[in-house]
């Protein structure tokens, strides 16, 4: 095999531009996805049966269809709804919607697994459902949620590469551009893998530090 090191020296800085875009998309979609997912997760634990059903249906749809299809639906669907936001925002929205579905499940599962005696004790002092969630169950769920949420964020970061299909100039797309002009697919894809690996390892590390810092009782 004949690895072309000169190409890698040339490509590495070029890929930085794509890396910045990937990080930007990842960050914005992570914030939106986490916020949306937490809200959905709480609604799925809340007191309105119709809302609970709708959230379940949404989560089912997100988990039961390929992300690639969801991206195309958002990309072609937004203009139909009169929203011309460009491929960046289409991509961010698609990833956020997808991430929110998975985060909702994590929130529902973790909050639901807090010991039943906690809810009963809170009921016995007259708390209603919303207060029990807010003051008793959620605070006890933060730490156990961290590992599962980290997984969802890792998946989100990997999924940003799919946005190359709607021409978002993120890391994968920037690599493909180099491949198209120089035809060195193996070198570039290997380089891309290393870039992603470094980004995701840093995230995992940060999450472990965060988990250690969160209080446990």
């Amino acid at each position: 095999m004949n690895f072309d090191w000169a190409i890698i020296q040339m490509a590495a800085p070029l890929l930085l531009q794509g890396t910045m875009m990937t990080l930007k998309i990842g960050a914005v979609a992570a914030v939106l996805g986490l916020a949306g997912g937490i809200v959905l997760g709480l609604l799925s634990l809340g007191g309105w049966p119709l809302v609970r059903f709708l959230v379940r249906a949404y989560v089912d749809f997100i988990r039961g269809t390929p992300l690639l299809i969801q991206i195309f639906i958002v990309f072609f669907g937004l203009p139909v709804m009169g929203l011309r936001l460009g491929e960046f925002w289409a991509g961010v929205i698609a990833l956020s919607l997808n991430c929110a579905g998975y985060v909702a499940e994590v929130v529902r599962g973790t909050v639901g697994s807090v010991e039943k005696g906690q809810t009963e004790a809170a009921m016995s002092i007259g708390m209603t459902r919303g207060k029990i969630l807010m003051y008793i169950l959620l605070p006890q769920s933060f730490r156990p949620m961290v590992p599962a949420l980290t997984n969802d964020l890792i998946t989100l970061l990997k999924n940003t590469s799919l946005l190359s299909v709607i021409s978002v100039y993120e890391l994968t797309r920037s690599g493909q551009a180099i491949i198209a002009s120089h035809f060195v697919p193996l070198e570039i894809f290997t380089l891309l893998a290393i870039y992603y690996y470094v980004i995701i390892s840093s995230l995992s590390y940060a999450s472990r530090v965060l988990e250690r810092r969160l209080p446990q009782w």
Partner: protein
Amino acid sequence: MNAKTVRTPLLSVRDLRKSFGDREILKGISFDLMAGETMVLIGPSGSGKTTVLRCLNHLEEPSGGAVMLDGETVGGSFIGTGGAFVPAGARELAEQRRKFGFVFQRFNLFPHLTAVQNVAIGPRKVLGLSRAEAEARAERELNRVSLADHMHKRPSQLSGGQQQRVAIARALAMEPSLILFDEPTSALDPELVQEVLDVMRELALEGMTMIVVTHEMTFARQVADRLIFMADGYIVEEGAPEDIFTAPRQEKTQNFLKHVLHR
């Protein structure tokens, strides 16, 4: 008691029933409780003691019968005389539930909160007291259960006996009409039992209305104003503790007492 001093009971329980699936666990429980009375509920394991307490404050939805606290039907109301039963909304039920203090066998303290926060959270979030008022009240109640020195510890830093006393303070802080105790000392190491019983005895002396499920027969004998013996979902015998301990009338009661007193 003459006509002028006839008092209405604080709590009236009428034909309370509870089934889990097709197993009937409570088969029609009725009793009255006067304000200031301490009632002790004893009976073999599985007889339905916990279920009675949980049905009183609707932690468990009764399958039939009525619980009246201070003239108000808990968990719903009847419209007009002999009218239809309308179940209470969640908010109304929560409001009624806080009039029953509940002390759990396994304490069920909130592990993320300190002792004082455990006690203050109800007054603060349910009764709407300011933070300072709620904490002042929490400190007062923790003092009452002799935990002034442990206000700022989390449950995991407290012994079982201390945790249970925090739980009692948490119930007291809601200023309940009565407190239900479900075997408050059975999860404790033997040397920690007495400190909890002492707090309960003190409350009884101060005139708190209480229903206590317990296997502590000495406590029952000394503190109860009235004793109820339950078996198989029925009240088998009811009366002054001294009478029941010395001269039980029912055979089931005799057998049970023989079993628990001669161990």
